[in-house]
């Protein structure tokens, strides 16, 4: 029997088992054996399509070397272009993206943090959404840092609008933006402990007694995953 037309066996690590996140007792849903694997890490080969190739070519030219030296991965997904940039090259890449006449991403829409505790060595991501008004294009730049060394260079000198955005990302994720003029908490009180948007930060809440049963706090309840 030929196996050519069978889908490949997924090799991604297992994300979770079952459906309800039940660990304390048996899963009676009938889905206890369900295996859900992590989504594969995307890396798009050329051509990317649309203006994405132009942006990649022009950035490569502006950087004066191989694009892969500064950009670890290029992902084209759902009509959006993402450059996963090495953090030590971030400022250089952003400066070219902003200043090069062929790129001209003048407008930054800020920094958004994402915490991926399962990605070892790159747990914390800072995501920059850039917009070029000159060429009417959009681009996402993503930088990662390990949880053990939570440093990313600050880009306030290039995009002053990142001032508050980086403070917010520090506040919520604990990413230290080196070179930020005043990296202080912005949403949480100054004496707050921890960084609330991290996945290892509990949602909070207390167990509640209801008719003799104890209802756990929201983030420890059984729920569909």
């Amino acid at each position, binding site marked *: 029997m030929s196996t050519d037309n069978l889908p490949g066996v997924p090799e991604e690590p297992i*994300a979770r088992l079952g459906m309800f996140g039940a660990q304390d007792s048996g899963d009676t849903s009938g889905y206890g054996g369900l295996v*859900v694997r*992590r*989504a594969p890490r*995307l890396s798009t080969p050329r051509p990317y399509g649309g203006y994405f190739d132009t942006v990649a070519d022009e950035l490569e030219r502006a950087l004066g070397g191989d694009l892969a030296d500064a950009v670890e991965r290029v992902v084209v*997904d*759902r*009509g*959006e272009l*993402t450059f996963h940039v090495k953090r030590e090259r971030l400022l250089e890449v952003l400066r070219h993206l902003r200043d090069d006449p062929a790129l001209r991403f*003048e*407008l*930054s*829409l*800020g920094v*958004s*943090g*994402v*915490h991926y505790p399962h990605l070892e060595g790159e747990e914390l991501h800072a*995501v920059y*959404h850039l917009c070029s*008004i000159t060429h*009417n294009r*959009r681009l*996402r730049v993503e930088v990662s840092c390990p949880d053990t060394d939570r440093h990313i260079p600050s880009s306030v000198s290039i*995009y*002053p*609008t990142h*001032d*508050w*955005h980086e403070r917010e990302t520090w506040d*919520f994720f604990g990413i230290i933006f080196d070179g930020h003029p005043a990296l202080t*908490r*912005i*949403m*949480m*009180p100054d004496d707050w402990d921890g960084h*609330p*948007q991290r996945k290892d930060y509990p*949602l909070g809440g207390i167990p509640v007694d209801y008719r003799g049963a104890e209802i756990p706090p*929201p*983030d420890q309840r059984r729920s*569909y*995953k």
Partner: protein
Amino acid sequence: MSAPYEETTEGKVYTVSGNDWTELVATLSGQQDEQLVVNMGPQHPSTHGVLRLILNLDGETVTEARTAIGYLHTGIEKTCEYRTWTQGTTLVTRMDYLSPIFNETAYCMAVEKLLGITEQIPERAQAIRVMMMELTRISSHMVAIGTFGMELGATTPFLFGTRERELVLDVMEYITGLRMNFAYVRPGGVSVDLPAGAVDKVGELLKEMPKRIKDMRKLLDANPVYLARTKDVAYLDLTGCMALGITGPMLRAAGLPWDLRKSQPYCGYETYDFEVATQKTADVYGRYLVRMTEMEESLKIVEQALDRLAGPLKGQRVMVDDKKIGWPAQLALGPDGYGNSPDHIAHIMGGSMEALIHHFKLVTEGFRVPAGQAYASVEGPRGELGAHVVSDGGTKPYRVHFRDPSFTNLQAVPATCEGGMVADVISAVASIDPVMGGVDR
């Protein structure tokens, strides 16, 4: 009599709470060389909610202005991670409470992008979204201009503004069942079709609103006091706007016709006929004029959307055909607002076991969204409102981040206030039109 004070390492700190200004003045007389640090807010009527400004004053001149935010932080982004994709609309609608429909639409567009169903959203749903967004823009601008008037000491614009907003809110209530926090736009479309009579209601509003906008213009456009307080105040040119990431009326008042509805159209905006309002003055008055023109243009869009909804799009679906995503949103208008439709309840409780299971699974478990990330943005009343949504393939968002225009635009406070008079701080902040619910999320 001298005002009560404490000795600190920074010098004397006076605590005044109103009614004791004479004492303070008496105490401070002869100390004009000292710089004065004034804390304004977070509980101050003219700081637009709980915004705190720390002003360094040299006489009447502001030498340094700093903004402190976070007093309204509610952790909506975190809460989203513990609720299903559909429940997310109920949460994000509460962020910027003056433009709830925009929050919902940005969020839903991002979710739809992740699901890959952007092309399948029915045209009628898109037209309803456009109509609701433009109505919301009018009500939001009305509040912006109204509160602005009040903060400058004129109560009539505020009365006009809130009265006009009421007209819009009545229509919104008629359509969605709620006056605020609608959760009306859902991933895949909108929660419920326009009720009978909604087209007439919007039609009446379209007849009334131009007069009301004209009244506001008569009140403010050439009012000498208003002009004195707004012209050449809080100047921020295009370079400043770009550097600070400022979008919306502030950017357009600096002369750049950048409007996502035109430049990167969504929800079918490319098919509507309207102009992008711009001004070249880059001051508070320019921002006011941009907002006024935008309301007039919004009315044009509402009119076009309404024509389509009453004409060619009549009777079409308002939710995607995919039954795995579209909620069984058969709601009906009851005496106490929107509720379950009796027909639908009879069907799932008495007619079809499968329909009941489907309803139960979709409502309690929700649908799964393929892993990945997406960014979707709409042109809100205050600028680009973006939603960065990450999925890990589950029934709940992995991360929801909102790029709220109020948050970014507030960074312009030092740039627009420093070097100006302390009274102009009020104009400057009001012309930014920050909504703290959106700033702090």
